[in-house]
């Protein structure tokens, strides 16, 4: 199991390097997905299948959706089709698919060796264990996370307003709208 852990870790590092060195955002996203999936495999190897599954569903899933949205919004019509053909060059998809293939081989090999409950060290953290931990001693942190999300939401909705507020009211005494500084 250790070899699966280290292999996935290595792929995560390589894929993340791919993310930050790619100039095209869509290519970078491809690497990012591979990186997230390899991190999920690291979680599985460490005996945290719940965190691993969440990583796949939330991160890889959400990032995939985001990726699709980006493609939908930024490339429309013939130009988009040409762009997509250009993206399908082997040079571009070879890197991520190679890394993903290694991940797949690792996964199959670990499954082949039987005994799905094996891992690097410690006990298996099931969803129940995570739940009792989160809503027991870590309840404070969960609530703080909720407050944090509220603050982030309010900030984003306030700053992201498309309609600008009216110009500042004209100064009644001087008639000047704005101080010349």
């Amino acid at each position, binding site marked *: 199991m250790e070899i699966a852990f280290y292999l996935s870790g290595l792929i995560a590092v390589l894929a993340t390097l791919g993310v930050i060195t790619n100039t095209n955002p869509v290519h970078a996203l491809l690497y990012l997905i591979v990186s997230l999936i390899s991190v999920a495999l690291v979680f599985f190897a460490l005996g945290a299948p719940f965190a691993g599954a969440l990583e796949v569903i939330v991160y890889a899933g959400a990032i995939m959706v985001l990726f699709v949205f980006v493609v939908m919004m930024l490339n429309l019509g013939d130009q988009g089709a040409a762009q997509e053909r250009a993206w399908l060059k082997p040079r571009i998809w070879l890197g991520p698919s190679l890394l993903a293939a290694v991940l797949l081989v690792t996964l199959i090999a670990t499954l082949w060796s039987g005994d799905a409950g094996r891992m690097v060290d410690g006990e298996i953290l099931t969803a129940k264990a995570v739940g009792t931990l989160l809503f027991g*001693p870590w309840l404070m*942190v969960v609530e703080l996370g909720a407050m944090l999300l509220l603050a982030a939401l309010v900030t984003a909705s306030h700053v992201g307003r498309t309609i600008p507020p009216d110009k500042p009211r004209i100064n009644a005494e*001087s008639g000047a709208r704005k101080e010349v500084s």
Partner: protein
Amino acid sequence: MILTATHLLALTPLVLVCVTAIVVMLGIAWRRHHTAITIVTVVGLNLALIALIGVWRMAPLATPMLAIDGLAIFAAVLILVAALACATLGHAYLEHYRGPREEFYLLLLCATAGAMVLAASTHLATLFFGLELLSMPLYGMLAYTYHERRSLESGIKYLVLSAAATAILLFGMALLYADTGHLDFAGLATGLVADAGAWSLAGAALMLLGLSFKLSIVPFHQWTPDVYEGGPSPASTFLASASKVAVFVVLLRLVMAVPAFQNALLHSVLAVLAILTMLVGNLLALTQSNLKRLLGYSSIAHFGYLLTALVVSDGLAVEATGVYLVVYMLTTLGAFGVVTLISSPYRGEDAAALHHYRGLFWRRPYLTAVLTVTMLSLAGIPFTAGFIGKFYIIALGVEAERWWLVGGVVVGSAIGLYYYLRVMVTLYLAEAGMQKRDAPEDWGVRAGGVVVLGVALLIILLGIYPTPMIDWVRVMGGAMLGPTG
């Protein structure tokens, strides 16, 4: 440790602040009314302050991941007072703002809750969440008047740099965790009993770096003047007072509790940073012609002085830190409060350029008196609270025989005197006849004006008769050192 009813009771102030935030949110969703929302905010913050008195009887108490001890209560009082001042100043400032005004209070309450969590945290998870809950609303508060280029710039700048600092902090935490397998301060302390290894030393250094960004210690200080200048004045006030107090308190807690931070190498690094911060902050302030930028550089210098307490970190250190934080917070509230009042109600960019203040004395004598008192206090002139704070720092340095640090404080104060005096001279110069920005006619009877006047009175009172403050800080500091230290 499971959260029990007792723990919940001890967390009442925090819960009250969070509940107020939710009430404000629901109120905004139901009907927008600026003054009503402000009143709800102020009532909530006051209730939290009153609840702190009850919690003081239970202290010290260790709830899961948060310590409700003297230091936490002390910091919570400072943070709540700063938040109250910011709420009242915000009401004056946003009165004629045409966009939505109520969200400001929601963000302010969230940031206050974050600061309280941060100051009480004894676990790396609450430290991280507290820090984020403090910073996240601040992005929104700084970029609140986002159609103003400078305000948006200040928000984005703080967002990007602070996110980078948080990433570094997280990396430091990960290294400490990898070395010890603990996330709570007590576990970290026992896990690092032996001479700290390279990994935990690197972790401690990275955490120190992340936190010193928030305190704008010198190599990481470049953002401060820009952000202070660009943000709306009430937001800058909160950033300069409550946010810095909370981060410094948690840094003090970390340094006191975890032996990896007591490493001799880290201490000499801290000492060098302290001297650099004092000198660079003061030297850069010399050429500023904008009062908010000047106050930004001056706050950099003041945290350089405060670092002395961290370097010594024994004997009088907790007491000196407490006294200095009280003094610093009052003075900052006063100085930024006057800037806010001059710029209120909101009419575009804040009136912070020094020439706006030229001849202010001849128009607003009492407001000028307040600004003069805060400038004197920042410079550390006797009979103001600032003198008591600086006296403590120098006494601490002399006692520990850190002569370089003492020299840095003295030289820094001497340089500081020049630019504080320059501001004061500007206030009393004859008016040049230009149309100036001014506070509203009846500023003295409004809530914001009362706050500013009260702060100025307190600065003078504590400067002449500091015993109550020192006694209070001693009681709080003693309660902190008892169980956890």
